[in-house]
């Protein structure tokens, strides 16, 4: 019995020592100073004044660009000699761009739950070589690393200090803190990309970037979600030099285009011409409807076949007789000018070929024509 008592006493002491050792070890590992986690040097139990603490398993943030600040003046660093004015950082523009390249975490790589930390919360104003934590760049290094890489890849003359800073002594450089910051950034977009795929029956897929951006007016972030900045911000002509690569295969197109079934909708033997509404629907958008969103006429129909309403839904003043049919590129003759629209355009489907059979048994469009084609018509905009 005595032996067991003695043994358990030893056990307790041993456990205590092991514990002590563990505590000593973990506290030894803490390389940050108190201020890394506390906001004051003397935290009390009542007010531990804890900072939101950057841990390894940080929460990924999905804040919207609008919840962040608009422009920030970076002025926490004063060097010696102090050569430069503070830098104006267009946070809003960068936050919006980040929607195309990995979101806020691209810069805000450590975030406690529920908030997004500013750079200076963790990066101290002195360089890492002078601080207790060698692994974490100081604020100046952190800023420069964050900015210069993308700016350099994008050919934005990043190694020229003055593209972001204005020199204190130099009156010729206007102060960047009042200037609009994003003026010099341009986006280079391709017009047509021809992809060579591995699909034998139709190797070629032709993609018209300008159709998607200008005509279908897709937001950049609809397709570009995880890109490098330099993918779009690059010197003009950069797209012509490189062959189009298929990245992500069908995944890029499938959110909008059905990819099962009819391969020939996209795959072909030769490059294809771009989207042409006149040829597809016999309705020329270029004249008056080029700036409308597809949905204005087609509604939310995913196939964009047929109209969601008729022309009169917008052009309420149009009646048979008051409509100058020449604006469509086809002038009606006198007899047909007064006929109801629906007599020829059955069910007001203007995409379909007009029919003659409501009145004529023996006539067929376009062999028999109710008028003549006209080239250009000057009418006042309706």
């Amino acid at each position, binding site marked *: 019995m005595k032996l067991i008592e003695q043994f358990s006493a030893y056990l307790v002491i041993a456990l205590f020592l092991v514990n002590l050792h563990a505590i000593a070890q973990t506290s030894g590992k803490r390389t940050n100073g108190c201020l890394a986690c506390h906001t004051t040097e003397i935290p009390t139990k009542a007010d531990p004044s804890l900072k939101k603490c950057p841990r390894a398993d940080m929460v990924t943030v999905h804040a919207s660009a609008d919840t962040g600040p608009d422009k920030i003046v970076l002025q926490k660093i004063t060097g010696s000699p102090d050569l430069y004015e503070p830098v104006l950082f267009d946070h809003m523009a960068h936050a919006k761009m980040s929607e195309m390249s990995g979101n806020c975490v691209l810069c805000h790589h450590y975030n406690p739950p529920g908030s997004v930390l500013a750079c200076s919360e963790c990066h101290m104003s002195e360089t890492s*070589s002078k601080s207790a934590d060698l692994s974490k760049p100081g604020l100046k*290094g952190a800023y420069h690393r964050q900015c210069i*890489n993308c700016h350099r890849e994008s050919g934005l003359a990043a*190694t020229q200090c003055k593209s972001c800073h204005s020199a204190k002594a130099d009156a010729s450089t206007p102060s960047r803190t009042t200037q609009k910051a994003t003026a010099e950034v341009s986006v280079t977009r391709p017009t047509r990309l021809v992809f060579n795929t591995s699909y034998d029956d139709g190797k070629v897929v032709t993609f018209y970037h300008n159709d998607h951006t200008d005509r279908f007016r897709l937001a950049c972030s609809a397709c570009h979600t995880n890109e490098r900045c330099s993918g779009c911000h690059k010197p003009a002509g950069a797209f012509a030099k490189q062959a189009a690569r298929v990245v992500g295969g069908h995944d890029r197109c499938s959110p909008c285009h059905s990819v099962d079934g009819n391969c020939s909708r996209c795959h072909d033997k030769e490059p294809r011409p771009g989207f042409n509404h006149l040829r597809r629907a016999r309705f020329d958008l270029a004249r008056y409807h080029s700036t409308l969103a597809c949905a204005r006429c087609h509604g939310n129909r995913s196939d964009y076949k047929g109209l969601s309403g008729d022309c009169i839904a917008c052009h309420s003043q149009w009646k048979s007789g008051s409509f100058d049919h020449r604006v469509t590129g086809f002038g009606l003759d006198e007899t047909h000018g007064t006929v109801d629209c629906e007599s020829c355009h059955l069910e007001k489907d203007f995409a379909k070929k007009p029919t003659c059979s409501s009145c004529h048994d023996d006539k067929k469009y376009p062999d028999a024509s109710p008028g003549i084609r006209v080239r250009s018509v000057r009418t006042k905009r309706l």
Partner: protein
Amino acid sequence: METRRDFLRTAVVAAATATLGEVALGAASKIPSPDRRGILCDLTACIGCRSCEAACRKEHGLSSVSSLSELGRSNVPERRRPSPDALTVVNEYKHPNGAGSPTFVKVQCMHCDYPACESACIVGAISKKESGPVLWDTDKCIGCRYCMVACPFQIPSFQYDTALKPDIVKCDFCVHRTEKGGVPACVEICPVEALTYGRRSALIEIARKRIENYPDRYRDHVYGEFEAGGTSYLYLAKTDFKELEFPSLKREPMPGTSESIQHGIFAYFVPPISLYSLLGGLMWINKNRQKAEEETTE
């Protein structure tokens, strides 16, 4: 401090009394201090701005060109070596496929843990300091240029314009700053903190961590951790170091080879004093030839 003359005097005595040329093993037998400092140079972060070059020149009063804007970036694509008026230089290596960003490499003395230059130096003018730097003593140096030959990184350079007072020049790790608790001039100026000064062991830990955290960004190689027995300057890069013209070196310290040259010389019973007179003679001839060259070129 021992001056060159003192050294020669002792050398004469030593030569007179020496039975067989005995040379101290030098640095190879010294164990470097675990607390020694180093500089981690992250080439994936370096933007090739040459600020470090400018700061180093200014710090050492080496050239009138001391500001970055005066230095410009025009000669970065050239392969340059450290020289008497630039203890460190930054070279540009184009991206292999031409389109990507280039890699910039800052070149200077690596401050080897077992410096080949130290053990090659026959007058003991070069020495590895406990805290990491490899320094040379102008007063002792006789300008024999053994260190230049021995150094696997071709670092020490000869100050030709002061031929009367031969001097070997190389990066001094900015000891005058670090002694007072500061950081080297190049480290302080670097705008992206591509350079980190600190305990070598801590820097290796950080380098390993970066490789582990960002395997796409870094090649799994800390150059200088083991090369030639280890160096104080450590490098991280994305590309193969061979492509950046870093010499491929074994883990063994270099002195083995250079010492064998020396031992080889002494093995032929060439007493040190005759060696010095030979070297001195050579230097004298050289100096005159150089003078003549200078005169003809002017």
